[in-house]
């Protein structure tokens, strides 16, 4: 299989098992998926349904037990660890529910890190980090350590970090799961701007209000897709109105 011109991410018969014998757990069960370039896809489902595992598979953080996985016309489920690392460095950006910022690094240093890992010069990494922190509204917090930032600010730093190497797709795992309503709105506004710029987003969430902002919504249960809905409002609609936050 190869992705069609408009498809950025695709998978066929994707499966992920944990354990063996009677203890076997099928976290992802024969999933078929295509994500178009520039699309925002929301994946919903209850805790433990396999949506985070799916996200990890899509980003090359984990390997599938079976099936094919394609990203930007390249099959990635057979790549070596080194190639997967390069893929995560250049083509994928992650945003986690727990932020996963380096506690000893300032906001700016956290955002610089992916660029440094990608071989950019310290100056290039610094300039890019400043630019991104400006974009997420945290230029004045660039020298702060994560422990001195609010949850929303930390997640915005994490989003800036995900964008450091201009990835093709941003994979967000419950990005607002640890945030209050105001911080959730800040993050969603950022996603909206990313969508507007044509970035592909896959957001895993169990919050219907977040899912409502996507172009397409997939529901998961017991590792399999059980429903798919194309949303008309999407992130192009009135965000605050859609999710009932603010004016």
């Amino acid at each position, binding site marked *: 299989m190869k992705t069609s011109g408009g498809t950025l991410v695709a998978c066929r018969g994707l499966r992920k098992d944990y354990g063996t014998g009677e203890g076997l757990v099928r976290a992802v069960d024969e999933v078929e998926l295509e994500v178009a370039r520039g699309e925002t896809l929301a994946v919903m489902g209850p805790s433990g349904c396999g949506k*985070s*595992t799916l996200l*990890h598979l899509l*980003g090359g*953080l*984990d390997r599938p037990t079976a099936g094919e996985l394609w990203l930007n016309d390249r099959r990635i489920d057979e790549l070596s*660890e*080194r190639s997967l*690392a*390069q893929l*995560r*460095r*250049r083509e994928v950006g*992650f945003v*986690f*529910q*727990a932020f*996963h*910022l*380096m*506690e*000893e*690094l300032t906001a700016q*240093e956290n955002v*610089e*890190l*992916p660029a*440094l*890992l*990608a*071989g950019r010069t*310290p100056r290039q*990494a610094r300039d890019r980090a400043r630019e991104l922190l400006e974009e997420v509204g945290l230029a004045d917090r660039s020298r702060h*350590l994560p*422990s001195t930032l609010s949850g929303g600010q930390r997640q915005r730093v994490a989003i800036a*970090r995900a964008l450091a*190497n201009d990835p093709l797709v941003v994979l967000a795992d419950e990005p607002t799961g640890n945030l209050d309503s105001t911080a959730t709105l800040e993050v969603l506004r950022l996603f909206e701007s990313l969508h507007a710029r044509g970035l592909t987003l896959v957001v895993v969430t169990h919050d219907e209000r977040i899912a409502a902002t996507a172009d397409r919504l997939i529901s998961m249960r017991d590792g399999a897709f059980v429903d798919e809905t194309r949303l008309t409002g999407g992130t192009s609609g009135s965000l605050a109105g859609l999710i009932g936050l603010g004016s």
Partner: protein
Amino acid sequence: MGRLLLVIRLAAKDVRRNRAEALLLLVAIAAATTTLTVALALRGVTSAPYAATRAATSGPDVVAAVQQSTLPSQLSGLEHAPGVVASSGPYLIAMPNLVVDGHSDPVMAEGRDPTATSVDQPKLTSGHWVRKGGVVIERSLADLLGLKVGDRVGLDNLVGGGPGPGGGPGSSAGALRAVGPSFEVVGIAVTAALQPSPLNTYAHPSGFPEAGLVWVTRAAAEQLAAITGGAFGYTLNLKLADPSDALTFAAAHQHGGLVLISWQSIAAKEGLIVSIEQTILLTGSWLLGLLALASVALLVGGRMEQQTRRIGLLKAVGATPALVTRVLLAEQLVIALLGAAVGLVIGWLAAPLLTNPGASLVGAPGAPTLDLSTILVVFGAAITVAIVATLAPAVRASRTSTVSALADAARQPRRAGWTIALSSRFPVPILLGMRLASRRRRRAVLSAASLAITVGSLVAVLMFREHANSLDTSGGLGGLFRFSGPGDPLWERGMNVMLVFTFALVLLALVNAVLVTWATVQDARHASAIERALGASPDQVGWALVVAQLLPALPGAILGIPVGVGLYDAVGRHASTLPSAPTLLGVLVATVVVVAVLTAIPARIGARRPVAEILQSETA
């Protein structure tokens, strides 16, 4: 009782769950206690055997000797000197060569009566006393030459030129040919009237050459004197009314070619050899104790990182901080006690290695005594090390908030701004490695200190060798440890001490290197997982973990050089002889390479852990 059982069960379960770490801890403590046991076991060897030998042989209070071919009246006149209550001799000393398997050594052959005397009757450790055609060999000489009762030896003047007095043991006879009588070794004995071979300079270093001692019958001694150009000298053994007057007596009568040596002088020189070894071993055991402390601290620190969640669970089901502390302490104590028992047994078995070659005294060979005080000190040291290293992290861990412990929150790392800024100029493995090393400064300091001690000790050993080698080339005795070179029993014994010490030291250093890496791997699992999620490859993360160990290792190894010099100067008694620059460079390079190789294994394992699993399980 129920609470104690609970603590034991919980501790035992955790030990079973982490067997590899428990084994490493056991090795660390066993290595330290082995050296301590050897050092303590040698304590008795210093003085007790000489006293035992003196008692068993009716040892003289003063030995008088003269080096001339006729018996002077001054020597025999000493028998009646004021304060003398008993005597034996004078005995004729011949100086033939002892010929064994084509090798020759000059020996002093003392002519004795077949009947026992009341002063200085050598104690037989095997065989019989002198008889016609038989020779009794002093035990350290017999050990050196591998002689036993029933062997045949030549006592001879040599035709064709010999090595001459002072040639040292093991000189090759080459074209030499024995022409004198052949003797059967009928006995092996020890005496308190003699310093251990080859330091048996007898009465005075300038009076008698370095040679072993044998006893033959008076007739045989006269026959040997005849074929070697006359008597070499005479010796007389004296008992005083008050043995403590021996030093004064010896000084008062030392004139006219007479040389007198007191029992205290002989005892001091006997003790000197072992006391130096004891000094080395005690110093070594302190150093090893420090390394063991570092090992335990690293292990405990690493285990606390792993056990955060377990501690949270224990507290969540009602365990008090005190109970958690007790469980954590109990684990380390059980291992420490086992390690001490292992170290005690190995040390006890290893101690004879250090005493056998110089077996000139009763009680010196075989296993030195293992008394209650040694056992208590060894176990006490192991327990102290375990408690000191465990208590602080155990208390800290037990006081961690239950909620954050359950969440397995990683301990907050330190921030080193300048390191972070500087590291961004380097390739990815060095960049990540520098940042990793700076996260835990105390661990880096501990690691550097551990290597400084190890390299320092190695440098001290090298300096010792360098010094001993320089003595060897000059050909004489004397110097720092009075070693003359390979073949000399004192050299062999000294090298055995160094071997035991170096082995324990290197073993512990290797354990420490692995432990430091493992602790870093545990501590950095979250940071490493994030780095990999952001695009660092497993190889880069693995190399970063190695770099993180090498960064403190290099200054630690360099610091080891002055530490080694200081150590040598503190223990030794002579000016330092630094090893050559290439040797020192070799030690540094070898240290760095060994650390890199050792740390690469746990680093590789740690770098290949599944990222998603770590990021999912840790919410910090």
